[in-house]
């Protein structure tokens, strides 16, 4: 298994804007060189104001997402309140570290809006949280997307600009990466709404 993180392929990216955040992912689900499906969901709405994107081994993407859904649902019921994005970001880190010696092969990105303020956090597979930057990437096409982000990104973009920039960065990155692509999905979250747009990438 040369690279368990590369087995299924896939890329994700998250970006902060002015009172908004955006998350994008590709749609490929592959098994090494074969493509199995082109509509695999990798960005999940955890709560009205929190998005979770996952890249890595698809079975773990699914399981980790289900685990986070369970945690937030129980939290809502027990505490009788919504979870803050920063709390969720910390929860993801704890949940990953809990499996320190048998980890989930995923690299998550959490994005959210806390009282209007954009929150973005990324992690390695064992829960090292980093919330310092204005954009973050993950997955096999990550490094290609980084290049595009550095070129296109500027701080405090409005939702329309942000959607354009994150979309173009994702597409540029995925088009170069053999294991990512077959379409892209862009999520833009503002205080008022969440918009979802499907993009076309190189169909290969």
């Amino acid at each position, binding site marked *: 298994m040369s690279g368990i993180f590369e087995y299924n392929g896939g890329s994700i990216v998250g970006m902060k804007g002015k009172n908004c955040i955006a998350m994008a992912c590709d749609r490929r689900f592959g098994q090494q060189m074969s493509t199995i499906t082109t509509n695999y969901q990798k960005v999940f709405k955890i709560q009205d104001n929190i998005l979770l994107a996952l890249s890595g081994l698809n079975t773990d993407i699914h399981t980790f997402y289900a685990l986070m859904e369970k945690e937030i649902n129980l939290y809502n019921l*027990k*505490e009788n309140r919504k979870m*803050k994005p*920063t*709390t969720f970001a*910390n*929860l993801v880190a*704890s949940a990953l570290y809990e499996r320190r010696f048998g980890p989930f092969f995923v690299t998550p990105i959490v994005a959210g809006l806390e009282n209007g303020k954009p929150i973005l956090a990324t992690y390695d597979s064992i829960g090292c949280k980093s919330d310092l930057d204005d954009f973050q990437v993950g997955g096999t096409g990550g490094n290609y997307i980084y290049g595009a982000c550095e070129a296109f990104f500027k701080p405090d973009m409005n939702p329309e600009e942000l959607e354009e920039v994150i979309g173009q960065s994702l597409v540029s990155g995925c088009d170069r990466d053999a294991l990512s692509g077959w379409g892209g999905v862009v999520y833009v979250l503002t205080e008022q709404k969440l918009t979802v747009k499907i993009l076309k990438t190189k169909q290969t």
Partner: protein
Amino acid sequence: MTDFALTTFSSKGKLLQIEYALNAVAKGDTAIGIKAKNGVVLVVEKKQSSILVEESSVQKVALLTDNIAATYAGLGPDFRVLAQQARKLVKKYDLKYQEEIFVQTLSRELAEDVQVATQRGGIRPFGVSILIAGYDEEGPHLVQLDPSGAYYSWKATAIGKQAKNAKAFLEKRYNADMEIEDAINTALLTLKEGFEGQITPTNIEVGVIRDDHVFRILPPSQVKDYLEELE
């Protein structure tokens, strides 16, 4: 450890062990809590069995975290154990969420440990009622936790020997617009009402939390000032 429960139902549907635990609480030194609109105060009697006891070594108001503290009426050692369990619960929550725990959440989780002692094999219920006071994002809170595991939120309450009289006194004195300074005075007055002997800065303990979210146990010098104000 035995396999069977020691706390079992009587034919009348009562759990006598819990009733007896409440009796132990009713014999304990009085503790009073009052929630003001900008803080909470806890005062508790600290009657020593002999003048030879080092008064400062007895701590009846225990800090559970920066913004939550507790006191009790009943068996001191049982309180110590529960306070330590509560501190661990706070830290466990903190490690998982890196967030300040709500008073209600802590009360609920601690209540589970107390309830377990009424149902698990081989152990007896805790012989304390606890008053938890704290100030979190939602505001000031005062919660009473009983040996049964039931917990109640109060505006003002008393537990222990003088509970009945103190609560009657509080019902007349309490008003929702109380500020924390009024609450402290009222709490001390209430304790003084049923106090056997002279009330002094060293035979009571006073803990206060204001809207700065920091719980402080008042040093005897400050307690002395408040007591003098009462005169």
